[in-house]
């Protein structure tokens, strides 16, 4: 693999992470009660950019794994498994937010209003899970033979 690809992917991975966690974080913090003068519905318009960030991390992540499969998969490190698990849970959390109709409920939360408790739980989980992904990602180089 050409020598600039991995460094470029590392940068894209972190940029994508910042976009994903930062934009979803803003949304979650609003649901949890910060910046209450924001109506929630328009905040959703920022989500495509968070998704773009996620796609960047996913794509660059796949490059890492396919370029060095044995580093990540044989042996499987605790850090790698935990990170993938937290990503899965994070995505499931998003899925349930949409599938249960919570997203539609939350669209109606206007400036000054509190989000419903279910939304706060989802938002809190979201923050914990994505921060968890970052935590396990950072630990990859210290567990097993990932690096």
């Amino acid at each position, binding site marked *: 693999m050409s020598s600039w690809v991995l*460094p470029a992917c590392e940068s894209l991975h*972190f940029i994508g992470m910042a976009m994903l966690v930062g934009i979803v974080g803003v949304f979650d913090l609003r649901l949890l009660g910060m*910046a209450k003068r*924001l109506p929630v*519905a328009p905040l959703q*318009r920022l989500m495509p*950019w968070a998704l773009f960030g996620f796609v960047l991390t996913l794509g660059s992540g796949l490059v890492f794994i396919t370029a060095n499969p044995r580093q990540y998969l044989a042996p499987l490190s605790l850090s790698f498994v935990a990170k993938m698990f937290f990503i899965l849970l994070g995505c499931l959390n998003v899925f349930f937010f949409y599938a249960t109709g919570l997203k539609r409920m939350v669209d109606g939360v206007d400036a000054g209003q509190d989000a419903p408790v279910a939304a706060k739980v989802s938002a809190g989980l979201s923050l914990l899970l994505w921060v968890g992904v*970052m935590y396990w990602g*950072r*630990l990859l180089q210290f567990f097993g033979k990932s690096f």
Partner: protein
Amino acid sequence: MMGWLQSVENSPWSIWLKESPSIWGYPTLLFFHTLGIAFSAGPSVAVDLRILGVARRLPLAPLDAFFKVIWMAVALNAASGAVLFASDATAKLANPAYLVKMTCVLIAVAVTVMIRRRVFRDAAEGVASVDAASRYLALASMILWFGAITAGRLMAYF
């Protein structure tokens, strides 16, 4: 100066940080630094996108509340960064990627202050305004944060 930096680098805690297999040393420090990146660059990018016209129906003034998060994250990174730097100062100062990164970070912080003053000066009254200069600042902010992240990642290759 170099002598002092070297003595900090070789101090007992610094050596512990670099050589201890403990998770609570270097890995934890790096995690805090990454957390700071996400919550400084991330919300900044969200605000910048709004200034540039994404999600136009989102009221701009209330976004002012997120600068608290941004500043806390910057502080976290200044603190974790200071420790990381101190443990390896002479090498870092010789690393061009590190110098580029610090330049980007410092200018990004300055631009963030400028955006706060220019766009959010009257945010407490619910007023925020965007002009052409603010849009350039928002664009610059995004480029600088992404530049800092990129330079930071490239440090390992120099």
